């Protein structure tokens, strides 16, 4: 019966993409292997190159339709107007509620006084 063994290169190929974020994943034994193995070094170089190429895309903005800026600003204008209307409506509601509460308190007070006079 033959025993199947996983070569360090195959095992390391699986963790190579993760090494970009966490180089500590590479144990000293594996690091020693990589330093001697051209296949693993090539694989590591591929992922580093890929990362570099992706990072460089950040400096290459995708051309947008200039009208989009106007649309965004118009959308913000509408949102700001809605917000202002809600604030005004909220203040009006608060004023009305306050007035209603004051009226109710006044009426209540008058009723209490009237009841006391009658009983006196």
């Amino acid at each position, binding site marked *: 019966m033959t025993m199947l063994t996983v070569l360090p290169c195959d095992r390391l190929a699986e963790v190579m*993409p993760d090494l970009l974020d966490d180089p500590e994943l590479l144990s000293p034994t594996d690091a020693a292997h990589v330093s001697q193995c051209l296949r693993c070094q090539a694989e590591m170089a591929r992922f580093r190159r890929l990362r570099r*190429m*992706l990072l460089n895309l950040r*400096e290459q*903005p995708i*051309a947008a339709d200039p009208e989009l800026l106007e649309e*965004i600003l118009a959308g913000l204008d509408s949102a700001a107007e809605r917000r202002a209307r809600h604030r005004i409506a909220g203040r009006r509601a608060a004023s009305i509620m306050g007035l209603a509460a004051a009226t109710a308190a006044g009426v209540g007070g008058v009723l209490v006084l009237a009841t006391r006079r009658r009983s006196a």
Partner: protein
Amino acid sequence: MVAPAAAADVARSGHNEMGALVAEARDGDRGAFDALVRRTWADTYSLAFRLTGNAEDAREVCQEAYLRAFRGLRRFRGDARFTTWLYRITANCASTQLGRRRRHRHEELGEDLELNDLSPSVDPVGRSESASLRDAVQRALAALPPKLRAVVVLRDIYDLSHEVIAAELGISVSAAKVRLHRARHRLRDDVLLRSEVEGSSNDDVDRPAM
């Protein structure tokens, strides 16, 4: 050519200006918020396009992101950069948009990424990468399934942490790492291995017969 120290100063002063605009906008200055939009919209659109893979969705995501930022600016604590905060909102909006699309159309997006954006990179190493390889990266990114693409775009292009990516996409940190692992493997296969194979087959063609 701008010296690195001078470039760092420019970046720092730009960051300070953004900070001042954010403070004014938080105090209710609409003009300051508009100025922030003007400074960041192209970058936000690029991110939205890379996440969604098409212009129509990118426009919607971009508009929604600024509306959310406007509404939530008072909650922005300022412990991260405004642009990073905006990236998070954009990623969240794109995730929602893609979810909505999937429910409506049941199809994978991003097969037709337009390549109309290739301004030269400021990184000298990046500049030396061949234009065809850059195109290949863009195409390979566009061909990734949206779930894989979102993670690799946010991590490898916009440098967000695993934790932030997981939070904005509504997945666990370990799921984000697994998706990133798969995405990088696929990009490596689609971009680098393919270019190596094509390069070696061209060598075979060019080599004179012995």
